[in-house]
């Protein structure tokens, strides 16, 4: 028995699960619109006179372009987190996990298929998001006299934004298993990433040690570092893009790994 074809079949099954509910196109619209709208907003903001005022965020041309093109990411990574939670949470909620494990009794393989499918799904939405933000953002930057493509480092950011989305989907997978109630998992997952973490970052920025040694390792801080957006002036330390990418990979690996271990051992009743 080879792992190859059966894993491929499980991945196909996972992709079908995603494409056979209404979630996928709702998410598609949300990703595209938020990407276009946010990059329009940021494109105007970062090329305006506000940037010259004291206390304004600081960034070079590359960071401005990065910020504009990944403006929608702050919304779409939360959407990928949601997709990750739902891809497994809905299975527990509607008890379809029984059928999944009956078809693929090798549970680790069934869950690995979820990991692969989520990376593919996130990459798909990532491309959609870039389509919205780059078209809008480049138009705005061009119109307002800024350089839309100051360096190839921008391309790196665009590619990394796909990785970021995939990793957040995997964080969602872990959260979706570790918090068995899907609604609770969604509220806690999005709540922590969107509200608790920024508040904590703000609070900790007044404590030098934490600002330098803890905050950069938070998933949202790492996300911002990976795509190298312009920095606010709070003085919180930031990792280099590759270190931040590794930190985010670690978050995704630990959370989805713990989730998978739990799902493999758990009784399904």
């Amino acid at each position: 028995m080879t792992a190859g074809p059966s894993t491929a079949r499980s991945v196909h099954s996972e992709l079908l699960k995603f494409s056979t509910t209404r979630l996928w196109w709702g998410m598609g619209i949300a990703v595209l619109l938020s990407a276009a709208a946010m990059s329009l907003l940021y494109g105007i903001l970062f090329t305006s006179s506000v940037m010259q005022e004291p206390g304004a965020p600081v960034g070079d041309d590359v960071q401005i372009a990065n910020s504009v093109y990944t403006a929608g990411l702050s919304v779409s990574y939360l959407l990928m987190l949601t997709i990750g939670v739902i891809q497994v949470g809905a299975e527990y909620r509607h008890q379809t996990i029984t059928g999944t494990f009956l078809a693929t009794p090798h549970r680790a393989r069934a869950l690995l298929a979820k990991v692969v499918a989520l990376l593919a799904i996130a990459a798909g939405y990532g491309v959609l998001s870039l389509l919205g933000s780059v078209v809008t953002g480049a138009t705005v930057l061009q119109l307002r006299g800024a350089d839309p493509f100051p360096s190839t480092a921008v391309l790196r950011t665009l590619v990394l934004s796909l990785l970021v989305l995939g990793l957040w989907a995997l964080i969602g997978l872990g959260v979706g298993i570790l918090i068995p109630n899907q609604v609770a998992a969604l509220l806690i997952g999005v709540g922590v990433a969107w509200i608790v973490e920024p508040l904590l970052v703000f609070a900790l920025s007044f404590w030098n040690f934490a600002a330098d040694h803890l905050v950069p390792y938070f998933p949202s801080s790492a996300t911002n570092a990976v795509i190298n957006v312009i920095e606010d002036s709070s003085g919180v330390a930031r990792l280099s893009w590759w270190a931040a990418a590794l930190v985010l990979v670690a978050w995704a690996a630990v959370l989805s790994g713990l989730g998978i271990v739990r799902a493999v051992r758990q009784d399904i009743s």
Partner: protein
Amino acid sequence: MSVIGARVEVRNLTKRFGSFTAVDDLSFQVDPGKITGFLGPNGAGKTTTLRMLLDLVRPTSGTATIDGVPYHQLADPLGTVGAALEATSFHPGRSGRDHLRVLAAATGVPTARVDELLELTGIPVFARSRAGTYSMGMRQRLALAAALLGDPRVLLLDEPANGLDPEGIRWLRTFLRHLSSQGKTILVSSHLLAEVEQTADEVVIIANGRLVRQGSLAELSGGSGTIVRTSDPAALASALGAAGVAVHPENDGCLLAQTADLRLVGDVALQAGLPVWELREKAADLEGLFFELTEGTNRTAVAVGEGGAA
């Protein structure tokens, strides 16, 4: 393609959830080509046993195998065992057809088989609407279609008649008969004996997680007897006794003769010069037997106290 069922074997199976013993040293065997009813009151441990057979629940001790192999080691799980565990495990936003396509994709079953099964289970019309709108009967049919996807050799059905209308129940019976005539192994759980009485060849009765009785329905109901009513029961009883037929007095002056031979009883009465006012086969009171076998083992009754059950 010849279909040969597989042997389902449960041996010394035990499952404890904390201090609660759901399944307690349970052993039984289910053979191919027959329909076996898996009976017990609600909470007797039927579903837990089926889930252990499918490696969804890990046994505390003991084994549950299909042809000697645990489920997760089967080379072709859905082609070996088809299971319908509950009629509610669908995503309400996914159509029935898509639900089957998702399962089919995981095992490489072609979509053509999905449509074939929708026809077979009689739900092709509804298959494209969302499963959340389905009636209980349609959910049961969809669950059965899912179980049959891989054309399995063994079918494990948990309360498949729940929510079916009388016509649906009749359809299910015929359908299961047809499948068992192909040689498949079929295990159907139910908390109602009447539900499987007309379908099952064999029954496995459990209560409190323990085996109460296993055997054919005929064996279970005991030797069938003959009810006879006459003017002088005592005289007929001694005449039958002389003819070698054991007799017990029944209520209302009837006699219960321990024989299925109505003609013999009639002949004996004629020779004894006694009128026969009533002569019939005693219908096996399986429901009564089932109740008797599982009485006092209801978990809630046990929880109240052992003394109360006696």
